[in-house]
């Protein structure tokens, strides 16, 4: 037990090491949050372009560009994209690493969100489109007021899954020396040479965050279901 106390002291109390965990957690949350926002924005725009092309054949050039974007992002690992953005795209400038991470993870997430949203839009029966159009809505209005709300409900589980993945994916941010939660644990590990405590602490924090997100989505799903009846 004394050993346990000593290890706890060394890992978290000595030199205020808990700060690595707390600051890392705040970096992880910030990066995930803003990357998710960028991901949603890109995702919806790309999905609407792609599904418009699928349904009507319009927007040929934007659709082509979107396909290139999807191929590039989904065809390469996020760590590699992160390193490319840090060491090549912003190759010669001193730049805020959190910003780099947000851009990298946001761009990455956008591609996955796009395909999820597109699957949602395509899952809505064409009759809904026709109903919208016969009510006098134009294409955009039909999309915004009739299709997207229904699509959103269908894709919510997949979307939540994407953001859970995103949260955990940010753990590779340490590659560009950004001190996120995982890196915080690693730094403590490197100082105390104690594997178990820092790693399990980090694991439990991720787990609790994901459980919180899951609980939130479950509630949201339940509330959205209410309108079905």
């Amino acid at each position, binding site marked *: 037990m004394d*050993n*346990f106390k*000593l*290890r706890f002291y*060394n890992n978290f109390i*000595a*030199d205020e090491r808990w700060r690595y965990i707390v600051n890392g957690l705040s970096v992880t949350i910030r990066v995930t949050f803003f990357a998710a926002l960028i991901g949603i924005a890109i995702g919806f725009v790309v999905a609407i372009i792609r599904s418009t092309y699928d349904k009507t054949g319009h927007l040929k050039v934007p659709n082509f560009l979107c396909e290139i974007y999807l191929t590039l992002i989904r065809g390469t690992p996020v760590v590699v994209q992160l390193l490319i953005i840090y*060491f090549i795209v912003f*190759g*010669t*400038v*001193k*730049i805020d*690493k959190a910003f780099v991470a947000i851009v990298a993870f946001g761009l990455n997430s956008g591609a996955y969100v796009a395909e999820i949203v597109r699957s949602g839009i395509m899952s809505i029966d064409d009759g809904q489109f026709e109903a919208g159009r016969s009510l006098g809505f134009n294409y955009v209005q039909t999309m915004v007021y009739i299709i997207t709300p229904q699509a959103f409900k269908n894709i919510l589980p997949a979307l939540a899954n994407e953001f859970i993945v995103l949260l955990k994916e940010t753990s590779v941010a*340490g*590659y560009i*020396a950004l*001190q996120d939660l995982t*890196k915080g644990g*690693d*730094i403590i*590990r*490197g*100082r*105390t*040479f*104690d*594997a*178990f*405590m820092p*790693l*399990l602490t980090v*694991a*439990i924090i991720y*787990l609790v965050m994901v*459980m919180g997100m*899951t*609980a939130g989505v479950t509630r949201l799903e339940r509330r959205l279901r209410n309108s079905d009846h």
Partner: protein
Amino acid sequence: MKIYSRIMAAVVIGTMVFATGCSSTKPTEPAKTEEKAADATAKEELVMATNAAFPPYEFYEGTDVVGIDAEIAAAIAEKLGMELKIEDMEFGSIITAVQGGKADMGMAGMTVNEERLVNVDFSNSYATGYQVVIVKNGSEIKTPDDLANKSIGVQESTTGDIYITDDYPNADVQRYNKGTEAVQALIQGKVDAVVIDREPAKVFVEQNEGLEILPTEYVVEEYAIALAKGNTELLEKINKALEELKADGTVQTIIDKYISAE
């Protein structure tokens, strides 16, 4: 459904806490190093964990990890009648691997300090290391004392990282996974200086134009081999082999082979 997920959560967290508690009381099984290893048909493996981005101590030549540490380890393995196997991993993971029994020893230009001794044992020292400062030519940083408010690139969890963190609380310490990445960041102007061991520093400066090493060393330290806590059997054997290798000049020969005398 709700109750079920709560129970699940409790079970998972419970298991994790239990695992933490257990691990502290259960020492890692010492690697079986029978005296009569020669009799065995296959030689027993001596697994060395390292981070092979640290020339000239460990680096890749083709697909093999070579360098001072690798050769000393090979010499030790030979003395013990074992076969050396090198595992390359992130520096921060080496100790974890050693503690968990994934590797028998960690050898990566590691320095002994009090806190590390709580969790691992160290062999006798086999080489002297120096922490130095790399800057761009014409930098305003002239001595280690000028680092105080600068942004400094280090390799995460190395002693350079630890000394800088302790000595310059106001410095902006950027902790990269590899020394090469820290140097890359220095070249790109993302950091003002890099603090790293002298020998790899020389290689980095040689390979990249426009960099120089400050003449004043920042810290002098002793390198040692890390072993799992309580693995005294292997520790004694390694120390004995190391002393013999030092006495017959093998260690010095290996060091001289990689580091030209000044």
